[in-house]
């Protein structure tokens, strides 16, 4: 073998220009969205933080802005409607809602994944409620739960269950559960679709291996698929939790927080304090919004820390 054949050709040295990322084009494409995000999301968030430290009062033909520090936040602790109704209801919803939603969505995702009869129909049907505006959902269910002629009570009376034909939206105890149910109905399809996508992404080889090892369907689902689904599950749970913590349109149309604030949520109470309290003060509702923002951040962090573990 000649020395020529042993010559190892040196790799061609790439130029700086060829490895450089095209930052110009990157900026070009993300700039519109970033500008929109800065103006309509980031700026309002900072503005809300800022306003929460002020008291804004009209007086003598002018709007007087007074720095009050954390007084608005301290006032929140003494606001019975905020603490005992709005926060309580929202936390209840944020716990119960995602629990029911995740159990239901996961179960339905597995059923469709394992191709039950009519699975293609169900895949579409269960997602359809997500496509309906929250306002329309609230309106329609307001009729369904009407005590006199609503579909639910009429059906209950027709089958002899008159004692269950309650005034669903006019009692102390039922309105918040109606809100939770209606919101669940309109949003579970989203969780279902995401979880189904997560299941579909699991490699078939792992399931084949489990089958070969003697696992039946339930064991494969519980011991193989669910652990692999965990990252998707946590993401969907976080989204569901955040959605409940800030849900507004369905509640507003369905009950407006009535009666007696028994179905009040933090979002609806902020709306009332900001726009319907006979005042132009945005400081106090801003403090409410900021404090709730922090609560949501803490909740999301806890969920992530608790549930996100590496998959073995």
């Amino acid at each position: 073998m000649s020395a020529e054949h042993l010559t190892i050709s040196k790799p061609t040295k790439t130029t700086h220009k060829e490895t450089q990322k095209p930052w110009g084009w990157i900026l070009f494409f993300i700039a519109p969205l970033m500008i929109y995000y800065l103006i309509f999301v980031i700026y309002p968030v900072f503005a809300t933080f800022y306003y929460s430290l002020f008291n804004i009062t009209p007086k003598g033909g002018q709007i007087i802005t007074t720095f009050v520090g954390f007084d608005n936040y301290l006032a929140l602790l003494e606001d019975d409607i905020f603490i005992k109704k709005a926060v309580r209801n929202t936390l209840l919803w944020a716990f119960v809602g995602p629990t029911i939603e995740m159990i239901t969505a996961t179960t339905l995702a597995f059923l469709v994944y394992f191709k039950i009869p009519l699975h293609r129909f169900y895949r579409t049907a269960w997602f359809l409620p997500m496509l309906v505006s929250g306002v329309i959902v609230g309106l329609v269910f307001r009729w369904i739960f009407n005590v006199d002629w609503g579909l639910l009570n009429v059906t209950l009376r027709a089958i002899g269950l008159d004692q269950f034909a309650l005034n669903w939206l006019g009692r102390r105890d039922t309105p918040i559960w109606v809100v939770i149910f209606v919101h669940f109905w309109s949003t579970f399809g989203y969780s279902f679709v995401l979880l189904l996508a997560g299941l579909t992404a699991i490699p078939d080889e792992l399931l084949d291996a489990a089958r070969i090892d003697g696992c039946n369907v339930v064991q494969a689902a519980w011991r193989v698929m669910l652990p692999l689904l965990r990252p998707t599950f946590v993401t969907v749970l976080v989204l569901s939790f955040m959605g409940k913590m800030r849900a507004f349109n369905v509640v507003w149309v369905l009950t407006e927080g009535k009666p007696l604030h028994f179905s009040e949520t933090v979002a609806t109470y902020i709306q009332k304090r900001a726009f319907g309290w006979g005042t132009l003060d945005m400081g106090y509702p801003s403090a409410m919004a900021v404090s709730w923002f922090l609560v949501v951040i803490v909740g999301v962090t806890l969920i992530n820390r608790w549930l996100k573990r590496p998959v073995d």
Partner: protein
Amino acid sequence: MSKKLYLFIFVTLALSMLLAACQPQTVIETVEVEKEKLVEVVTTVEVEVEKLVEVTAVPDQPKGDKTLIVWWSHWANEPAKRNFVEKVAADYEAANPDVDIVVTWWDKNPLRDAIRSTMTAGEGAPDITTFDTEMREWADAGWLMDLEDVLPWENFGPSFYNDGRYAGLDGVFKLNLSAAVDMVLVNPYIMEELGIELPESRQFTQAEFLDVVKQCNAAGYAGVANSIGNRPHTGRRVIEDIMVPYVGVDQFGRWLRGEESVDTPEFRKILEFNVELAEAGMYPDVYATMGIDEYHVYFHTQQKACFLFNPTWYTGRSFKPVEQGGQDPNFQFKFMLPPLIDGGVAPNNVRSGVESGYAILSSTKHPDVAKDILAFIGQPKYGALWTALTDSPSAILYDAATDWPSLEELEALGVESGKWDWYWEEFNYVYGELAELVVTSESVGCGNYGDAWVQALNEGIPQGLLTVDEAIELLDSNLCQ
């Protein structure tokens, strides 16, 4: 591509987006109107699908050489009042060819939100807007123009001059068109069916009224059609109307404004009576969800209630074609005075006051023209026109002999002469002869107290969700400082 070119494209895009964001948007206001359209369908009255109201932004430039006045008004679903405002606008334009008036119709709550947003933003607000007395914060913020030297106050009753004034502020800020009277409507056909005769005084005693409500309920009717689906005042009106003849207008006013404790034997007696009424079936089952338009239909077309406590703006929602949710003209209800609790100090007192009116926003670019328009409305002939079109009393004084519109004018405006004469005969008899009208405010005191008043009297007591003690404690813990 060079860095300079990237920078040029980036800056161009950013500027164009900013400019685009600053352009006025056309918004289709559908939520409130669509809700009412759907609600009317559900009550099984055949109603015409109401045209969706398109809200246009404030145009940037006047058309040609004309001065453009933008007027945002409540009463989107009250054709008689729309008729009035549009007639006034047309008359003004005819008298002032260099002025163009654009009227946009809203429902009340979205209108208030829009005014608040546009005035806070400093852009996009109209020249003239619907204004309600309880929106005092608008006056406090300097958003309203003073009308003291603008309107011909000699054409208005003194209470309408005072209505637009606020303690601590100089000026009068509101043009009132309507003189509202709190009425008690009674279905005479149900009364006849139940064998109940209306007293000559047209006022039941406490015991009599309770008995009538029980009889109504036993026959499958609600005592009243009032409900609170989309208003914070339509339920509490029943309790408030009963309050006034019992304790008098001054005491009622102090309670309403949250100036003193309500933990008194008199207030307690009022609430206890209303608890009795609620337990006797006074309020409809759908009290929590039935909206303001629905309960009118519940009373006049479905005829499911014996009484309705409603001010004179009843006609705006009811005296319109049946297919639009109005009542049959042959449904000739009667009027009564509110029931009198034993020991009442002012038996004949009936609440009167105002409803929505108009104000000029301080951001207007044409204050002189806007003021001239409101002064134009303050003529006696428009007081008469208001009553002729809307069948509700006018705040503007007029002489029926000389100011009443001609038959031709009324026909041109779609008014059928004589159609509602029975209503006026009944109204003039009960509220003109039998009653003593006393002016009261609709505005509850400060924010927290206002909410407590609504919770207690609009929601809690009528639905049995609060005891008398709980209601009193709720109110007393939120008195205005």
